[in-house]
């Protein structure tokens, strides 16, 4: 039966199991929006297309399903770029549908025309411009497949106005055939055997776990592996939650602002086992000094280009983390090694480092410390809470002091470090899980970048709880200016504008403020128990810094401690 492009678009989304999309209408997508009005899935009207993409991103991180967003051409499409790059850097599966001017005027500098395909080419996993309505269904099916498979990533589909209006017979292809795309899931069995043998011999091994473990839903296998072998675990920012942080083998986060003992274990370990992590510069510090004691580096990654990119790898295993770990565990068990009491000395060494230099701060009577707010949230939050953050000091404190228990519970912009991510990502997560508590930990600088999305939260009565750690500064910038630029605070002071309580109320949300340490617990308790969207501003000490810190250009070992 004949359908127009807009109807095909909606049908395809339904076939892909989409239950919510985030978007903002405009001229060239009016036909799509007209059909959308009767669609069975929900559409959430965001106030800026950047937020539509962040919301789709937050939805995807929280659920593991692809997030979907829709924008119009020209400025609508260009507003998506930041969100796209954010998702691309962290390998998040999202579909970004943009309207485009009619095919007859493409390239003519038409009204609201932008070559979004060209603009986003370097920052998507793949992209399409649909030039004929006959191609639309197959394109959408391919796009969904590409976004979710292999190493996930964002896919952009540009749909010209005339294509959305043209009619054709609609058939949804049963399968996708891409000659140039065949991700490897099963690891090479020979490599897996080598890895098992190396693990069995190592005296001071470290499990270095990244976002790939979350993408692969491999937490059960990771736990089984760690408990079988007694190997201590450290995670990257994006790996937080993949291993329960209260577990005795958990060392917390590593890297530029990682714990002292996690970083020292990487410096002193004789075997580094990278699981779905990419040896990013925030983790390695100066490369020529990285992992200097490691005799063996094992690396599981579904992206072959990540292996050997920054750091030499001895046992590379291209494959899906979950699949490979399962095979590895079987191999390890077949070795019939007695792992009991293994690495005892190594674990004691790590425990000693943790005692020597724990994460610490002084919570006095006068000024609230950001770290204290995070610890309070960690105590109050229900077991299945989802935490989102912006970027900066508050983000690092959240990573350090919140005790993560489950994967897909910490949504944060790692690779790109996008301020303004928190509120729209919280919206995406809340839409995905209406009955779980979503707590957005934000900074005053970051919050102001997308605060207008409070309107969206209120319009749809999404009961998210935003806690703003307000130090009146761009905190992380100020920290660097203090440590490396002679305390010359160039344009990092935001001041006391706006009044966040009044701002929240202006949007129809509830606002709370705490300014003294004894107010923090009761204020947050009330905030979390208040129905509907809530903003709780906590005024914190701007002198406080994030420690440990590995300065830029320094080796991982050269941490600056409090």
């Amino acid at each position, binding site marked *: 039966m004949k359908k127009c492009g807009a109807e095909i678009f909606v049908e395809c989304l339904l076939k892909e199991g989409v239950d919510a999309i985030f978007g903002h209408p405009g001229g060239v997508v009016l036909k799509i929006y007209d059909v959308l009005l009767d669609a069975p899935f929900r559409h959430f009207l965001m106030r800026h297309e950047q937020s539509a993409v962040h919301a789709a991103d937050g939805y995807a991180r929280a659920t593991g399903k692809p997030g979907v967003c829709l924008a119009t051409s020209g400025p609508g499409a260009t507003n998506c770029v930041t969100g796209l790059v954010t998702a691309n850097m962290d390998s998040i599966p999202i579909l970004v549908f943009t309207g485009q001017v009619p095919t007859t005027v493409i390239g003519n500098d038409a009204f609201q025309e932008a070559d979004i395909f060209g603009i986003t080419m*370097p920052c998507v996993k793949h992209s399409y411009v649909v030039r004929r309505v006959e191609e639309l269904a197959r394109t959408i099916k391919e796009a969904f497949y590409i976004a979710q498979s292999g190493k996930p990533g964002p896919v952009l589909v540009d749909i010209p106005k005339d294509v959305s209006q043209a009619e054709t017979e609609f058939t949804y292809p049963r399968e996708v055939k891409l000659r*140039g795309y065949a991700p490897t899931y099963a690891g090479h069995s020979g490599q897996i055997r080598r890895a098992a043998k190396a693990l069995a011999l190592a005296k001071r091994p470290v499990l270095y776990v990244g976002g790939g473990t979350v993408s692969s839903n491999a937490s059960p296998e990771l736990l089984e592996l760690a408990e079988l072998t007694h190997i201590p675990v450290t995670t990257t920012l994006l790996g937080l939650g993949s291993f329960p942080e209260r577990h005795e083998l958990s060392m917390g986060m590593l890297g530029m602002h990682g714990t002292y003992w996690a970083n020292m274990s990487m410096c002193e370990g004789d075997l580094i086992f990278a699981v779905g992590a990419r040896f990013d510069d925030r983790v390695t510090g100066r490369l020529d000094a990285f992992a200097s004691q490691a005799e063996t580096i094992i690396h599981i990654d579904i992206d072959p*280009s990540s292996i050997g990119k920054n750091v030499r790898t001895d046992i590379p295993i291209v494959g899906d983390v979950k699949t490979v770990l399962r095979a590895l565990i079987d191999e390890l068990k077949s070795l019939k090694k007695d792992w009991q009491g293994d690495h005892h000395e190594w674990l004691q060494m790590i425990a000693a480092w943790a005692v020597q230099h724990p994460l610490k701060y002084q919570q006095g009577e006068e000024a609230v410390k950001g770290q204290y707010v995070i610890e309070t949230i960690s105590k109050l939050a229900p077991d299945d809470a989802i935490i989102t953050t912006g970027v900066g000091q508050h983000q690092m404190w959240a990573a350090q002091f919140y005790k993560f228990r489950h994967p897909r519970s910490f949504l944060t912009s790692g690779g790109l470090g996008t301020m303004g991510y928190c509120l729209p990502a919280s919206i995406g997560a809340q839409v995905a899980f209406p009955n779980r508590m979503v707590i957005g930990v934000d900074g005053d600088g970051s919050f102001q970048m997308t605060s207008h999305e409070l309107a969206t939260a209120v319009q749809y009565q999404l009961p998210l709880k935003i806690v703003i750690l307000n130090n009146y500064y761009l905190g992380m910038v100020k920290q660097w200016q203090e440590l490396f630029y002679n305390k010359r605070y160039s344009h990092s002071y935001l001041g006391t504008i706006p009044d966040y309580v009044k701002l929240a109320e202006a949007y129809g949300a509830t606002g709370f403020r705490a300014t003294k340490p004894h107010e923090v617990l009761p204020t947050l308790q009330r905030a979390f128990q208040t129905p509907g969207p809530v903003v709780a501003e906590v005024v914190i000490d701007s002198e406080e810094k994030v420690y440990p810190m590995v300065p830029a250009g320094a080796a991982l070992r050269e941490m600056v401690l409090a």
Partner: protein
Amino acid sequence: MRAREAPGQSNDDKGVRQHIISVLVENRVGVLARVAGLFTGRGFNIESLAVAETEDPTLSRMTIVTGGDARIIEQVTKQLNKLIDVIKVVDLSGEHFVERELMLVKVRAEPEQRAEVLRITDIFRGNIIDVSPKAYVIEVTGDADKIRAFIDLVKPIGVLEIVRTGPVALSRGNKAIS
């Protein structure tokens, strides 16, 4: 990896070598831009690039000459393979291969030099494809050494303009890239 060394040109002791990479791609809009963009975006160098349809009209072959040490070439190959539109990547420099390039040279040919230009063209089995009172346009086909040698010989006479296609290459033997 066997390097494609040019005579009279020593390779950098950091292992930087020239490589000819043959890339089989989908013959679709935007593929060339994506591949070229990948090189610039990641800071890889494109010394030359030739692309056209193959025996299968849905496929194109790109022949890219790029330089770098072993690690860079490994990254170039892996990043290219990541692209959905890229079907196969072969670093021909690591195998036995044949390579040809086409060049058109506009050579100054004043009356005293015309005979010499003709002689050189003959020796190189080139073709004169344009004649004018003071210049010849000569077409020369060959591998990089032959092209370079021809340029060196006509330079003293006077080169007005040169255009080159960059090399295209295929592996020797009966295996096909696809």
